[in-house]
């Protein structure tokens, strides 16, 4: 994959570049501020942009704003936001355009290399990668939801993974379940939440996130 990185801390930028290069990707540009990011993305049209939320000059949420601005100009540009902390609000803003190809992960996740690389692939392919912490926050605001309280513990586990953007096979691997039982769980969940059955993973993720975020 051709990747653009925007990260202001040299230590992390170099670490990311090394890690991605070692795993067979090409980093076409590694920048350290938001305006450069926008320029680099529009110039290189990468398969994926990895963006830190906090970037110079303001060290607030410039990375996020730059990402949203890039998406306005190129609605399909796959972007993965990395942050030291996650806010449900930011996830909502990122998901708002409904185009997919969005990821929002804690920086910690880069240390779980296989899962991280999997998330990169998902986002580049137009899917979604939401941090488990975001999903936890989404669940927290829905603790009184009648429909969600009817889910079994296992179904809730599966729902969390679906919301993170995982495919069926990834969920099977994660929970060590056979594909038919995962499919069964998912169809139960969709029925209980009154969501339309969807064979397309991306659409299913979006429906689930929209439900949790409503």
């Amino acid at each position, binding site marked *: 994959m051709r990747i653009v990185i925007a990260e202001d*801390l040299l*230590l*992390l930028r170099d*670490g*990311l570049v*090394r*890690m991605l290069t*070692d*795993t067979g990707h090409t980093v076409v540009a590694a920048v350290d501020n938001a305006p450069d990011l926008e320029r680099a993305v529009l110039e290189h049209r990468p398969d994926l942009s990895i963006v830190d*939320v*906090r970037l110079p000059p303001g*060290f*607030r*949420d410039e990375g996020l704003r730059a990402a949203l601005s890039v998406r306005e100009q190129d609605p399909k540009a796959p972007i993965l936001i990395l942050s*030291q*902390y996650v*806010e*449900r*609000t930011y996830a*909502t803003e990122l998901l708002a355009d409904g185009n997919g190809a969005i990821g929002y992960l*804690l*920086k*910690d996740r*880069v*240390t*779980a*290399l296989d899962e*991280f690389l999997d998330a990169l692939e998902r986002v580049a392919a137009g899917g979604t990668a939401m941090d488990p912490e975001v999903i936890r*926050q989404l669940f*927290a*605001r*829905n*603790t*009184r939801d009648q429909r969600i309280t009817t889910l079994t513990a296992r179904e809730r586990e599966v729902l969390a993974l679906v919301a993170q953007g995982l495919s069926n096979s990834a969920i099977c691997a994660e929970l060590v379940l056979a594909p038919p039982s995962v499919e069964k769980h998912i169809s139960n969940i969709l029925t209980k939440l009154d969501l339309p059955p969807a064979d397309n993973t991306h659409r299913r993720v979006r429906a689930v996130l929209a439900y949790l975020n409503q």
Partner: protein
Amino acid sequence: MFPRAARALAHLLAGLVTGPASFVWAVLTTLACGLLSFTYLGPPVFLAVTWVSRWIARLERWRAGWVLRRVIADPYGPVTGTNLWARGRSVIREPGTWRDLAWLLAGFPVGLVTGVVGVVAGVVELGVLLAPAWLWAVPNPRLYPVADWLFNTVGGRFTMSLAGLVALWPVLWLVAAVARVQASIAARLLDAGPRARLRQQVSALRETRLRVVDAQAAELQRIERDLHDGAQARIVAAGMTLALADRKLRAAGLAEDPARADVMSARRQLDDALAELRRLVRGIYPPILTDRGLVAALTALAGDAPLTVVVEASDLGELPAAVESAAYFVVAEALANTVKHAAADECVVTVRRSGDVLALAVRDDGRGGADPSGSGLDGLRRRVEALDGTMEVTSPPGGPTTVRAEFPCAS
């Protein structure tokens, strides 16, 4: 002794001039202000008169301070108000105005008595001391025998001079003492009274406390940033290195090697450290507050709660960081309590700023009966009070529960 006595004498002589002048000024202007007080000329004339009176008082303060060897500071508080009537009222309420007037009036009799005593004592002493030099020129017939000998013989005049020399120190001391009496009375009236002194202390304390609180908030933000750029980034970088090491171990066919288990466990420990740091940072200074400001942070809080939370906020403008974070934590704690105890369906958070006051209220439709001295709320109250704010919790049985907080936020 001599310079001090000279100063004292100069002070007393000046007092003999300023005393009557101030007295006349004070009497005339008080009469004039009294007569004009019910007309539109009242406020401007009063303000102008007070302005002049304050300069006279300043002069008197300097004169008294010159003898007492200390600086006597102005006691006046700020004159507030936008129109003349309001400014006039503010000057009338100022105790310093009346203490000034008291001295302008009292300065005359006090100055007269002390001035006469001091000057007479000084002149008599000088006369006696220099008796041989001038008494011969003044005929003094028909005196008592002793006085006759003293005044009219050379030996007697030199004896007087000797007596003058003996009395010199006590007389100089006396002159200085009366001058000090006059200056002390002046200082008593013109110096800041107990009320003004308290007011000055309070405003000084308030200012220093505000500085401490501001510095503390800035420090917390700095710590948050340092953790973000320093410790957190380093731990993530270490985690990346471990992840690559793990990958290499696998690539070298050592997937089952016990070393790999250690690498994995080290990585998990780093993840725990990061989670711990994140919790810490959130408690210190919520990052979203830095990123987006108070209203957005509160809206995010509202969105994360498992009940309907409506945030009503107007434009708050620039707020001190300490106020922002305290307001955030008050709302966070109130919402958490609502979720835990109130069995509420809806909660309304209002944040308003009127002038230099930020007022916020969190009101739910739950069952009430909250303990206002609960440990979480109590800690918050202390935090709010450190900013000179107030916080109150009303929670009658049956509800609703309302938490109100107000912060002064002059920026």
